[in-house]
């Protein structure tokens, strides 16, 4: 009874959670399984990419070695999990509060004896929990497929890569959650838009040195595979700034939703 709303949210969202998790997990595993075949030809691929200039820089490929599994993984799987996870997290965040008004169930929920603070808290917890579940399942799938092709599992590198994408998702969902409290008619487009813009900001920052500061704005700034594999650590400064944005987003949700008129 204590977590009624969390349970309700998970029940409402489990199908979508399953579809996203399986899709992303499936593509990550496919990529890993493709590696043994591609690995033999990678020497040539590395040379090819090194002659493509800013295109390789855009995805950090100038600093990653396609010839090793972890380098290959950071680029291919990083992009799949990065974009896929970001979309899912943004959609979860943006719809969490706004869907009640869009689907006109807000009247039902808010006329029950549950405080708005409680509603926000439990909905936020449900969002975070779903992101956590997705990441754990994908991580397990990923480790299992690396083990299946007989490659060495570099735990530190893999954990850090996955952890960084987990934080990207937390940040995007937190910011979208804050926006969600201000919406009246749902905003899936806004959520997807934010995820896409953030992704491209990182690419722009990779290409142009004068746009380097963008890395402090987009969460993908601290989830750059090349940086993580290079230092075997996360950029704590960028990460802290990202978490600060997250907290602001969540605080904004509490501020707005506790005084919002529900039509």
């Amino acid at each position, binding site marked *: 009874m204590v977590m009624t709303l969390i349970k309700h949210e998970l029940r*409402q969202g489990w199908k979508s959670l399953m579809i996203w998790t399986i899709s992303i997990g499936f593509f990550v595993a496919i990529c890993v399984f493709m590696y043994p075949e591609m690995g033999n030809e990678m020497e040539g691929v590395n040379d090819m990419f090194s002659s493509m200039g800013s295109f390789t820089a855009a995805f950090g490929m100038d600093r990653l070695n396609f010839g090793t599994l972890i380098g290959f993984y950071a680029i291919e799987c990083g992009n799949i999990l990065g974009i896929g996870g970001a979309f899912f997290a943004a959609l979860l965040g943006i719809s969490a509060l706004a869907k009640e008004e869009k689907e006109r169930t807000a009247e039902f929920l808010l006329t029950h*004896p549950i405080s708005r603070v409680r509603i926000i808290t439990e909905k936020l917890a449900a969002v975070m929990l779903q992101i956590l579940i997705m990441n754990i399942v994908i991580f397990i799938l990923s480790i299992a497929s690396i083990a299946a092709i007989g490659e060495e599992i570099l735990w530190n590198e893999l954990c850090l890569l996955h952890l960084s994408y987990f934080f990207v998702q937390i940040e995007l969902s937190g910011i979208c959650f804050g926006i969600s409290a201000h919406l009246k008619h749902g905003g899936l487009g806004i959520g997807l838009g934010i995820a896409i813009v953030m992704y491209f900001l990182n690419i722009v920052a990779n290409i142009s040195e004068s746009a380097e500061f963008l890395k402090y704005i987009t969460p993908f700034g601290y989830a750059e595979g090349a940086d993580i594999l290079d230092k075997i650590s996360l950029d704590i400064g960028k990460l802290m700034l990202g978490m600060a944005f997250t907290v602001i987003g969540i605080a904004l949700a509490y501020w707005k939703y506790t005084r919002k008129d529900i039509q």
Partner: protein
Amino acid sequence: MNAIQTLNLTKYYGKARGIIDLTLTVKEGEFFGFIGPNGAGKSTTIRTLLGLITPGSGSAQILGMDIRKDREKILSKIGYLPSEAIFYSGTKVREILKLSADLHKKDCTEEGAVLCDRLQLNLSRKVSELSFGNRKKVAIVCALQHNPELLILDEPTSGLDPLMQREFFSILKERNNSGTTIFLSSHILSEIQHNCTRAAIIREGRMIACDSVDALSKTNAKRVTIHGNVQLHESDMLRNMEELNGAVSFLYSGDIKPLLKILSEQDITDLIISEPDLEEIFMHYYES
């Protein structure tokens, strides 16, 4: 203690009027009617009382508690029936009733089953597959199953067939007899007239009358219907004259003696003098 007490409650949506200076008292145990046409401010009043929207100014108390400070406590003692019953798609009736009971932190299985039985509601159906009327029944069970002290009903009978309406009102009467206060908002006057003891009339956001239903119906006016061959002219005392099937009908207000004197000189075969129904009173309030 009053069940509902509002003081100069005012709400504007930007510049659009919601309600203005609404002062209203509903005593505990009353069956209270709230009458007004669409857009008069009935729903705004209810939504303010429930804490869905914040009043611009004024204050309100429900069961002695402030609507802004004690929102949760108030809602635990209220059953609310919205005019449009909308639930989470993909859920079953049983799940909605369970969710509602859980949010009330109560086990309402028994009472819920009794109500579903009386309203002939199938628990295993998905709410999204239900007709408007059947969704309304789900909302009715949600509003009643936790045995609230105060029932707030917003146009409760829309979508219900006449038999269900009768069953619904008999449930309401039982609840009222056992002490539940009922606040019934409606634009269907016969509903108010047949069930409520007191009523308020709201127009363009302002309350224009509040009295017992008997008193509201008993303005001095009488509805007079005459069969026969009569010649009468409309005047201040003699209004709303209409001819129907060879009968003349009009509203008469004033001393009854002069009327009888005039009528005695005419060729009359039949005469009916009755109380005007609330509908006519209502029109009277709205036309003036």
